[in-house]
């Protein structure tokens, strides 16, 4: 039988946050994303630089070191188009370090939407345009082709799997959520219902979230997490072929700061996992290629990797979020037919799922996570700035087409 392998997949992304965009800017100043005050804590550039120092630079250095010292160390990355743009503009060295990782031949890049959006649920044509734009960008920057798809926020359902299958992807990722898996294990390859050849990899959310969310939580009964403890949970004698660790790249250094010991933990984990010939790492393609599906799996309802509900409620759970998305996507035809690249780009940047996430009002357990990630003082402020930006887009469309109405 094949070796047991960790499939490590890290998600790299930064959005273009909407600045303090008021009614007094609407129809006057079409800059939604560049803070006029460079010291603002909402400045995209400042945030990028901060995360680059805390996470991208030290983690990429560590990954490079591990790739050099362990021939069997491998991983996969999804890198959003908005991240690539920000990195090329503000930190070319960071982008270069990602290129070096990919050049090693042991780092695979996944396919996704360029602007990190939930367009699949609103417009198929827009969604496919963004998938193509991302493929093109990855080709340009990294010189590689993508063959495995991950949707934004790991949002997944049968329909998406069937789409990806027809589109020619050989694999797709999803959350391995118990209520759907029931007695099944996420540590195997499955086939999505109604597909011909695509294979499904499921996130082992317990082990993934031990790192991504709980690692530094002193209130957690298992704090502090040691590599030996983690290895024992991973049960090295098990016959399960895979352990799929899927998480935000920024777990390393940003969500879990360096002083929590996350980098040391990771380095030690890679070393100890690889000190037995029975164990290895897989890229997502290798995990798919070297394992046959053990069964089919159906997920008619959409699941995601977020919050205790594992659904889209973090993005579309309240009326503000649903309104904002309704207004945004209703502009599609009018925006596309302008052929105005900067207008189309602004509209697509507003599709980035982070914007709706900032409008989330679930303030309980999950609210803590939301508040940590939000640059706004409240979800209501996030909504107001966003609405003003949408109105400005309408104004520009009106100016461009010379007709069509501002609809409020």
């Amino acid at each position, binding site marked *: 039988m094949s070796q047991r392998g960790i499939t490590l997949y890290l998600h790299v992304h930064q959005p273009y946050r909407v600045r303090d965009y008021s009614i007094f800017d*609407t*129809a006057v100043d079409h800059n939604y994303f560049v803070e006029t005050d460079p010291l603002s804590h909402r400045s995209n550039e400042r945030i990028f630089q901060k995360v680059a120092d805390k996470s991208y630079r030290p983690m990429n250095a560590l990954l490079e070191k591990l790739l050099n010292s362990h021939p069997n160390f491998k991983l996969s990355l999804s890198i959003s188009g908005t991240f690539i743009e920000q990195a090329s503009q503000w930190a070319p060295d960071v982008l270069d370090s990602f290129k070096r990782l990919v050049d090693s031949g042991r780092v695979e890049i996944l396919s996704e939407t360029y602007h990190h959006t939930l367009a699949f649920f609103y417009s198929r044509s827009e969604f496919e345009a963004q998938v193509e734009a991302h493929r093109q960008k990855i080709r340009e920057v990294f010189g590689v082709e993508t063959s495995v798809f991950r949707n934004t926020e790991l949002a997944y359902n049968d329909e998406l799997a069937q789409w990806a299958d027809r589109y020619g992807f050989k694999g797709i990722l999803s959350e391995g959520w118990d209520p759907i898996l029931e007695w099944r294990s996420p540590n195997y390859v499955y086939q999505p219902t109604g597909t011909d050849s695509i294979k499904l990899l499921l996130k082992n959310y317990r082990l993934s979230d031990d790192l991504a969310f709980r690692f530094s939580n002193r209130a957690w009964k298992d704090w502090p997490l040691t590599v030996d403890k983690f290895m024992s949970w991973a049960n090295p004698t098990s016959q399960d072929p895979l352990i799929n660790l899927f998480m935000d790249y920024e777990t390393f250094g940003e969500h879990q700061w360096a002083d929590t010991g996350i980098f040391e933990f990771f380095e030690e984990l890679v070393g100890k996992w690889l000190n037995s010939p029975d164990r290895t790492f897989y890229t997502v393609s290798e995990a798919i290629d070297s394992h046959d599906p053990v069964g089919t799996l159906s997920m008619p309802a959409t699941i995601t990797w977020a919050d205790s509900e594992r659904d889209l409620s973090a993005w579309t759970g309240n*009326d503000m979020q649903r309104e904002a998305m309704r*207004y945004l996507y209703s502009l599609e035809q009018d925006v596309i037919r302008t052929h105005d690249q900067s207008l189309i780009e602004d509209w697509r940047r507003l599709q980035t799922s982070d914007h709706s996430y900032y409008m989330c009002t679930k303030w309980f357990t999950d609210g803590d996570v939301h508040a940590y990630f939000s640059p706004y003082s409240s979800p209501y402020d996030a909504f107001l700035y966003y*609405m003003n930006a949408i109105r400005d887009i309408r104004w520009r469309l009106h100016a461009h087409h010379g007709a069509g109405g501002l609809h409020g």
Partner: protein
Amino acid sequence: MLGWELPPHNSGGLGVACYHLAKALSLQGTSIDFIVPYSATHDSIDFMKVHNATNLSPLHKNGMGAYESSKLIADKLDGDLSTIRGVQRRYVSFVEAHLDDKANHYDAIHAHDWLTMEAGMRAKELTDAPLIVHVHSTEFDRAGGNSGNPIAHEIEQQGLLMADRIIAVSEVTKAIIISKYDIPADKIEVVYNAIDVNSFDETYQYDGRTYAYLESLRQEGYTVISAITRLTVQKGLSHLLRGFAKAVSKYDKLALLLAGDGEQKNELIEMAAKLGISDKIFFAGFVRGKQWRDAYSVSDVFVMSSVSEPFGLTALEAAHHGTALILTYTSGVAEVLDSVFKYDFWDEDRLADQIVGIATSPALKKTMTEDVMNEYSKLSWDDVAVQLNDLYSRTRRKGAIV
């Protein structure tokens, strides 16, 4: 005169009214010492002496403005200036010390609202002067029809009982004082507020770029409805939103501008989303200066939706800038204006009809806008000062009816 705020350090209409009535009185020869509970300069005030009772910065910045009785809690220590109660105690001490100096002699003590009533009562004890309590709003108003904070209510009750004479800014307020505080009607006089059109900068010119998006909507034939107000339950804004949504369902070229801030803001944002009209509602936040005046100017219709509004000066300001007015019956200003639409604050259907009526009839809008201008310009602070001077001369000290 005992007050809580004066422009530009005001959180709302109380400071504006105090400023104008004091100014008009002084122009008619009345000499005034005005005590505020904070320290700040009032550059535009040379007609009276302003005394600072504490070293605090203007209180609305500390969440202790004239409308924040809901945050009122009993403080632990005397002299603790972090609570409204603490500031009020310090204010009373200041008044006591001030009156201790026999050089400071007064013919009348004029206290504005519950915030200064304790000081007013103490001043009455220490001097021979009669106490006149001027009610701009009651706790009942501030709490949106509920009984509100019991401490504020009790201070008002005592102040109203101890007063030799009570001024209410409208019949609406007078009725509340009678029914909620059991004060005999003959002790209360109604003196309406006015508007000083000269206080507006004559060089002001409307700048259509300030609310550029709303202005472009108007070019498209939209009608802009506005409410410039604190976003608080007393103002009846949830009824306004639902009424507006009903209007939109009948006639869709409408936009609603809400300028102001307050504890109800988030609730209103959510409600607008629930009603599916977020893109028609514009939250401008708290506006001052040019943005404040342009908010009136960009509006076609101004709505005062208050559940309970003792007077409502903003309606006069709006009329001055050329808007048609829709007022609730429970707004004091509705008592002095006729060329306006009036509705019961809960009657969302009626409000919707009135909005659609004005929006779809340019003739109606024009007539209402012009006629109300004639009405408001007859209200003057000079007349208010005449009434007050008359009242001072008639009022002699009486025993409190306790």
